[in-house]
């Protein structure tokens, strides 16, 4: 299968079930909402080293938020449901509570699983905090030097999907980067999806474990590293000298597929030879995203 001269490999991306929360951060203006969201989602590229994965889903207009201010929707995912509330408490407490003008709301109000995040953060108020029930939901007012920080008492949790991905195999690093940037531009703001790596792009794809260091749970993906082509079992076709990876997390499979479809389509451009994907033979992750099926669904009838 080819799209604009780019081969779509007959392979699939393999992804895992995660636990997800959606946090809506509002601010006096878009600048401060964005600032809090950017800080909150910093150092959250991979559960391997960051304990969670997080990213900005999209920006929200005044009409889309509960308090009528500009906002940003953030998704945060962990591998298990026990650690999600802890990660939220840490990150909201250190990055949103501290950020001027912000307030913080639950973006999954209908999710039956509730995480007592605001309920935990309230103790920062040292007994001076107060709660308000508005529209059937409780919020905490935490006094701070600026005035008050308002946070929802609970946040919804639902199953999510982590580790959707595709690889851009290009003639050189510059072509790979240009294609990856185009893909990110096409995928950004797809509802229910985040791209947790820097600028949405990862250059250091991994394989499971290590050939040399027993304590490492993930090491460089030597099969896709062009500098190792001559000394390892390379999977790179001739003429490929640069590879970048796009990793996607999301709230459900259809959201990931829709974003992958848009991203791959945008990445098929001059200088790109192959679009491939990372998997573990289908044995580890329950969610499989076959590239050709996904892109076939996009083909005109």
């Amino acid at each position, binding site marked *: 299968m080819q799209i604009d001269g780019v081969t779509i490999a007959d392979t699939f991306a393999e992804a895992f079930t995660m636990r997800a929360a959606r946090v809506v951060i509002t601010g006096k203006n878009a600048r401060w909402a964005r600032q809090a969201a950017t800080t909150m989602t910093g150092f959250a590229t991979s559960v391997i080293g960051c304990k969670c994965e997080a990213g900005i889903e999209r920006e929200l207009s005044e009409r889309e938020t509960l308090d009528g201010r500009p906002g940003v929707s953030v998704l945060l995912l962990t591998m298990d449901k026990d650690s999600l509330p802890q990660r939220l408490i840490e990150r909201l407490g250190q990055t949103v509570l501290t950020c001027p003008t912000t307030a913080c709301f639950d973006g999954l109000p209908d999710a039956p699983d509730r995480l007592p995040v605001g309920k935990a953060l309230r103790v920062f108020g040292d007994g001076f905090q107060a709660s308000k029930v*508005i529209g059937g939901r409780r919020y905490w007012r935490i006094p701070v030097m600026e005035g008050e920080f308002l946070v929802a008492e609970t946040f919804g949790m639902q199953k999510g999907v982590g580790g959707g991905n595709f690889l851009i195999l290009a003639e050189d690093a510059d072509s790979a980067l240009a294609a990856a940037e185009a893909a990110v531009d096409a995928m950004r703001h797809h509802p229910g999806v985040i791209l947790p790596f820097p600028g949405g792009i990862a250059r250091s794809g991994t394989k499971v474990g290590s050939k040399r260091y027993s304590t490492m749970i993930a090491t460089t993906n030597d099969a896709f590293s062009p500098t190792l082509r001559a000394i390892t079992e390379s999977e790179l076709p001739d003429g490929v000298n640069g590879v970048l990876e796009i990793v996607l997390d999301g709230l459900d499979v259809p959201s990931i597929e829709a974003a992958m479809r848009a991203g791959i389509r945008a990445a098929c451009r001059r200088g790109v030879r192959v679009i491939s994907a990372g998997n573990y033979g289908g044995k580890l992750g329950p969610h499989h995203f076959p590239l050709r099926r996904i892109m076939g669904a996009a083909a005109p009838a």
Partner: protein
Amino acid sequence: MSDQVVLTLRAPLEHRLEADAIVPDRFPALGARAIAGLPVWYGGRPATVGDLFTVTGERSERVLMHGDLTWAVGLGTGMVGGELVIEGAAGRDAGLAMAGGVIEIRGTAGDNAGGAAPGASRGMTGGEIVIRGNAGADTGARMRRGLIAVTGDAGQGTGRGMIAGTVVLFGAAGAGTGRWIKRGSIVSFGAVARPASFRYACTYRPPHIRLLLRYLATRYGLPVTDSQVAGRYHRYSGDLAELGKGEILEWAGA
């Protein structure tokens, strides 16, 4: 089952009507005949709802009442759910000790709306009361939780002894507003006769007010302005003769 139960006053009330049997959350189990047979006291004598009202509809927790009910006492007493809409004035003790649901009074309300029964430590513990008009004295007195919004003026002692909850006043509030409150918020867009035992804290833009007022505008269509939603409020803490964790938030303009 019908969408709503409509109770229409047959003739103007001339005596006090003890109407604490009219509680919407009990109506889903009642047919029209059973509703008409609910006991009330009128002028100190036993009567039934059907003696005073025509009953239309049955088995619904939305109840609509038509007529001047200034003499009707205790409408929605202790209700835990459902919706009671009164197309006209209501007498004292509407929503007395209610725990849930909504009472909407499209006229003036008598004293002690959402308040406590004599000798009781708590008034309403949940639910919402919207009064589209003036409210009498002691509105929300000793309330423990819940929301009361008054589009007109409120009488003296509004929120007296509140334990928690919220009262929003679009008009002025009488003397003794907030006296002896422990926690809770009284939000006012008009003049408030504050007790001397409240102390000024600051002037700021409370983030929860944005949420609260937008909710009142969306849910009930109350006449909230942008400058009230985003405005500045003087915060007075009190009652310092009590716990002191309550507040009067007085609108200070945009």
